[in-house]
């Protein structure tokens, strides 16, 4: 999987690259509009992450350029301007997703995976982790070929864990993934715990190993060897 990251902030570029590299992606990066536009035009990528505000131009023009060239790459806009106008313009131009800064790397990772899954029509549509099988198109989960009935939140939580397997994800990140902007104002993470407890129980009932490790003080790790 090849990813192009167009972001002018060197520190952010470095961290995103590092995180995605650990996920096993091949990440190339560009620091301004000219370089980004050039790379996007010459090479093929599975996914392109582009910032809107770039030196020498707008990331939105790169989105336009990619669409004119009928690029097959999935496009995610990462922008500091969390304005609905930019979001709508970006998505109208053909971007697949929009992520406002500051975002969590685990969130970015899960968005990239979802995007690649959607675009990968010919490939295997199911996600298989040992005895767990997820079919994202149907939003169904099977353990040892037996269907597990999950609520929407439990399903989203499981998919998020699996997208970030073997990674420590904080409770805040999970809350933000499940409740979006509304999680900004939440007082406690108790109800994350409630959803997690139910998820664990439902999986265990079908004979699933408990992969979710509690990382003291921070969050959880979905550990699959």
């Amino acid at each position, binding site marked *: 999987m090849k990813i192009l990251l167009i972001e002018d*902030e060197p*520190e*952010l570029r470095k*961290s*995103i690259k*590092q*995180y995605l590299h*650990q996920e096993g992606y091949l990440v190339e990066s560009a620091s301004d509009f000219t370089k980004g536009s050039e790379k996007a035009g010459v090479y093929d990528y599975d996914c392109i992450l582009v910032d809107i*505000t770039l030196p020498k131009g707008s990331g939105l023009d790169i989105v336009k350029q990619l669409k004119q060239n009928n690029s097959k790459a999935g496009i995610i806009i990462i922008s*500091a*301007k*969390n*304005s*609905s106008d930019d979001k709508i313009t970006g998505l109208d131009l053909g971007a697949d997703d929009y992520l*406002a*800064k*500051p*975002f*969590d*790397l*685990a969130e970015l990772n899960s968005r990239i995976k979802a995007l690649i899954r959607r675009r990968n029509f010919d490939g295997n549509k199911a996600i298989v982790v040992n005895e767990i099988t997820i079919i994202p198109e149907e939003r169904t989960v099977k353990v040892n070929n037996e269907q597990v009935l999950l609520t929407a*939140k439990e399903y989203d939580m499981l998919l998020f864990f699996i997208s970030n397997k073997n*990674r*420590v994800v*904080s409770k*805040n*990140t999970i809350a*933000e993934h499940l*409740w979006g*902007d*509304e999680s*900004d*104002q*939440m*007082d*406690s993470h*108790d*109800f994350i715990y*409630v*959803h997690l407890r139910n998820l664990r129980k439902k999986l265990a009932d079908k004979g699933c190993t408990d992969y979710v490790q509690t*990382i*003291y*003080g*921070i*969050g959880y790790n979905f550990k699959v060897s």
Partner: protein
Amino acid sequence: MRLINKTILYYLLISFPLLIIAGYFSYFLIKSELRDGADESLVKEKSNAIQLINSFKEPHNVNLSFDSLSNIQVVKNGEVGEIYFDTSIYDIGEQEFTPYRILKSHYSFNNNNYLITVAKTTLEEDELMEGLFSAFGIIIVFLVFAFFMANWLLSKTLWKPFHNTLSELNTYDIKKHDPHKFEPVATTEFNQLNIALNKMTEKIYSDFLQQKEFTENASHEMQTPLAIVKANLSLLMQSSNLKEEEMNQLQTIENTLKKLSALNKSLILLTKIENNQFRENVTINLNEVIAKALDNYSDLIQAKNIQIETDLKSDLKIEMNPILADILLSNLLQNAIRHNNADGKIVVSIKEKELSISNSGEPLSVSKEDLFVRFKKNDASKDSLGLGLSIVKSITDTYNYAIAYNYNNSLHTFIIHFS
């Protein structure tokens, strides 16, 4: 009171004492003129009497008038000289005292002494006053009438440019700024006013643009460093050899970072609302927005075991920006959840053009007036940013909706009147 009416009122107030002074002088002038006239005719009558005496063969008394006030008397002592004086004599016919001007004069003829008395009625004082009052009254009536006519004409012509400027000012919209909105006019003062207004609006507009730009810049400049911290924090968390204490510290950093991002987002939102950057309005069914918000927060509501009571009899449809409508309802609901007791309740009701959201909870620790002020928050809620209700207020202000708060029977209630 209109300026022109005020001016006229002042003119009238000044006219009154002037008229009184004028009346006072007129009174004495007219009075002395009248006396001079009376004296002249008395002298004439006296000469007639002297002519009569000169024709006397024998001295004797003569009545010169019916009321015998004017007469010729034969007197013994031979005084000389004459004397004018005023007196009042009771008139039986008219049954009142009548003022008279009298001339008594001594005259000698053929060694006989005569006292000639001639009298003439003069104008009564109250009649004089009456005349003067009616004259001045008529003058005042004419003045008032003339002033008001002038007012009407002046406001129609002279004040026209001013009224034009005023209506332009009332419709001034900073987002549709026109640098030459206030056009030159012929009257110097009004022209100066228009020039000053053009300058002022120009300055306000450039400040407005700068502030808007600043908001966008601040957003970008702050979100990127926050994103860097957050990204590196995620990477640091993956480290496998963290001690328990270090993990706690990481958690503290993450929580604080989350709060900082939320704060930044809210402040930018608040500035955007206040800059009127959410403009496109559509017809919104508020009942649907409420249902959506309740659904969004169902987990929070369940976590606190809060009972929801809804009383949504009729559909409330309003013209509003959809994003702002969502934010308005979300913030009110969040507020009702956060400041609620465990096992408390929330009551949402819609009546015609009114929405009310109530929640159970402890009485406020801040004053009612400070409720919508930025960063003023109830001590109890440490996690609150203190911006939620400021955002609510700035949205209702944008649309001129009235928002009220009250606390009754352990229920905090916010009522918004959409009109």
